[in-house]
């Protein structure tokens, strides 16, 4: 038996044990079953809008922090504050970037905030070209929004802010000054995009109202069964992003013969774990906000424990990923964490879309959920 099969067998065996021990507890009271409309309004008001507003506030902090770096010549303290502000945004974005409907879907905002994947280093090349050209008008308010999406957001800012050879703000030549000014412009641009997304959700014409008032006169949504599908698909998207962006690329690379290195999201900033962990914590939050656990079938009580255990394990494994990559690359612990994350992400997805969502009358087929 291969190690993978052994691993799967062990997990299945442990699941069976859990299931047996939980049968007796199946009569425990379950949470209230929300209607589709309530699932949607709760998702918007308790999950999306607060997170969008937090992103906006944090991008304002980042803009100020980068401004301070440029102003004080890149002191260690100001750079530390700027990287801390950047980490806050990675944290905020990790918890939001799987919400791909609404204002973020317009004006290329998703890619402008985080240009990824970038397998051919497009952001770096575009950035180098801008720095070489040193056009002053690019630094003016709003000018960057008309440039390539690759240089507008977190991908480009990571390159500038975490360049150990050229610490941001240090250096007195024109190139060093322009680099810092460009970083400040990128931060300001990120804030502007976050503000646009926030505004796009609000008001009588905002996307919130469009989702909360489905009907025959609403061109986007005819009823709550349509709006709730967008919410459920966001859940699927988040689980897929964790798997496809982080877990599978890393697992494929370290198990290749010979093993390879793969560049992961926010790796240069040392924030891959932060991003993944934040994403999983947010997905757990979304899962609870929708109230999917109320739809665990009565004949499958083992799910009551399996799901929270899977979230907990995912969060713990995500938290140690950076350390494992740096210090124990290819080790059993590294492989175990990756395989366990793959298993848990897949398990949660399967349970939600094969069991809980259909129980909640949110049935999405293979083509709707993931067509091409």
């Amino acid at each position, binding site marked *: 038996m291969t190690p993978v099969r052994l691993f799967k067998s062990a997990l299945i065996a442990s699941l069976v044990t859990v299931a047996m021990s939980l049968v007796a507890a199946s009569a425990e009271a379950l949470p209230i079953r929300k209607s589709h409309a309530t699932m949607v309004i709760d998702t918007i008001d308790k999950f999306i809008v607060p997170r969008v507003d937090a992103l906006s506030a944090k991008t304002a902090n980042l803009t100020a922090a980068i401004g301070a770096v440029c102003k004080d010549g890149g002191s260690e303290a100001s750079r530390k504050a700027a990287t801390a502000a950047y980490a806050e945004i990675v944290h905020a974005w990790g918890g939001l970037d799987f919400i791909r*409907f*609404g*204002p973020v*879907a*317009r004006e*290329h905002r998703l*890619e*402008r905030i985080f240009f*990824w*994947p*970038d*397998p*051919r280093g*497009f952001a770096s090349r575009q950035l180098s070209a801008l720095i070489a050209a040193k056009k002053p008008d690019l630094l003016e308010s709003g000018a960057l929004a008309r440039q*390539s*999406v690759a240089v507008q957001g977190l991908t480009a800012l990571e390159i500038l802010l975490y360049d150990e050879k050229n610490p941001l703000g240090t250096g007195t030549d024109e190139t060093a000054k322009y680099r810092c000014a460009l970083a400040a412009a990128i931060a300001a641009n990120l804030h502007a995009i976050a503000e646009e997304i926030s505004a796009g959700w609000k008001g009588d014409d905002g996307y919130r109202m*469009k989702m909360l008032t489905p009907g025959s006169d609403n*061109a*986007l949504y005819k009823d709550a069964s349509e709006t709730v599908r967008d919410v459920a698909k966001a859940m699927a998207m988040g689980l*897929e*992003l964790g*798997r*496809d*962006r982080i877990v*599978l*690329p890393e697992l*494929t*690379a370290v198990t290749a013969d010979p093993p390879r290195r*793969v560049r992961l999201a926010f790796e240069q900033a040392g924030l891959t774990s932060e991003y993944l962990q934040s994403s999983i914590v947010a997905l757990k939050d979304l899962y609870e906000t929708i109230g999917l656990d109320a739809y665990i079938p009565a004949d499958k009580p083992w799910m009551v424990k399996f799901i929270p255990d899977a979230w907990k394990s995912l969060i713990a494994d995500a938290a140690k990923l950076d350390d494992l990559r740096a210090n124990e690359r290819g080790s059993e612990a590294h492989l175990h964490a990756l395989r366990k994350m793959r298993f848990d992400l897949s398990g949660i997805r*399967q349970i939600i879309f094969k069991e809980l969502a259909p129980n909640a009358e949110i*049935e*999405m*087929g*293979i*083509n*709707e959920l*993931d*067509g*091409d």
Partner: protein
Amino acid sequence: MPKSKWGSTSSMAIDRRQFLIGSMVALGAARHALAAEGLSGAATAVYASGARRPDGSYAVLLIAEDGRLLREIPLSARCHDIAIDHVARLGVVFARRPGFFALAFDADGRREPEVFAPPPDRHFYGHGVFSKDGRLVYATEHNVDTGDGIIGVYDAAGGWRRVGEFPSYGIGPHEAILLSDGKTLAIANGGFGNDPATGRESIGVADMAPNVAFVDVTSGALKVRHEVPSDINLLSVRHLAETPRGDIWFGSQWQGGLEDTPALIGRVGLDRPIALMVQADALGMALKGYIGAVAVSADGRLLAASAPLAGRVVYADAETGKIVHDVRIKDSSGLTLGSGGSEFVMSSGEGALRFESDDSNSQKILNFAGAEFDNHIRRV
């Protein structure tokens, strides 16, 4: 010839069929054209579709029009579309984007399936098509290093060896169809690629420049390329169908915000630029920005387009582009010609096969509890 583990026919039957197939091949391109038009007159139509099985595994299913499950060929991963040689009764199923395998199978189970793969720096996009004489297969591919769209050429008679390639003249080629002239490939260049390392995540969506390219398959030279207008560059052209008059209808997928969705269905031709269907009722939004497949009826009167996100299949007059009919099917996606004049066969992720005439007066629905039919269905 080794007996297929899926086949159940006697050797005598195989021999007779081989003889018949040999005769048909000898008839050459003219017979191929008849078969491609759905006029070969086979007694019982057979349909092929990828499917997910209840245990989560994937397979190609071959189903007779009377509902018999004729054969099941297991796959190691999810597939997308199936290229069919109607004369030789061969199919080639392509792994979905980013795809790393294709599997060639004999529809009648006379020989073992054969698996082939793209080169290490290429991946499949899920579609391919046989040449008119059945000797070659053209597959839509991605050059992983450069991001360019490629048409890989594989030898159907020579162990599926890759014998050449030419550009798709765009990024992200999805479906390619061989036009009825037998020498022009129409290619839907969807506009964006993806990195195999990160699976199906899209790359370069903001700068998409989708197009439909018409390419001479003998030389690989571009005949003409029609671009999607730049103000709707997020309209990813994916699926194509030709009318007997030579018009190409296409179905698209919108990569932007739902409220900005344009019409998703349009027409293009060698000598006519892309023109979207004109609809007063915001059809693109109603179809949730996504068309899964398109097909044109055998008589050329009707276009059918599936919209799985909306659970609908819409019919349009293939001449005027006006929507004439609308069917509700949950998780609708696969569409192909039925065995009758204007009949379509539709498949769904809920395991339904629906045989429908153009006026919907006669329908037959078969349900397969253990099959979630994947994106495309084809008649063998």
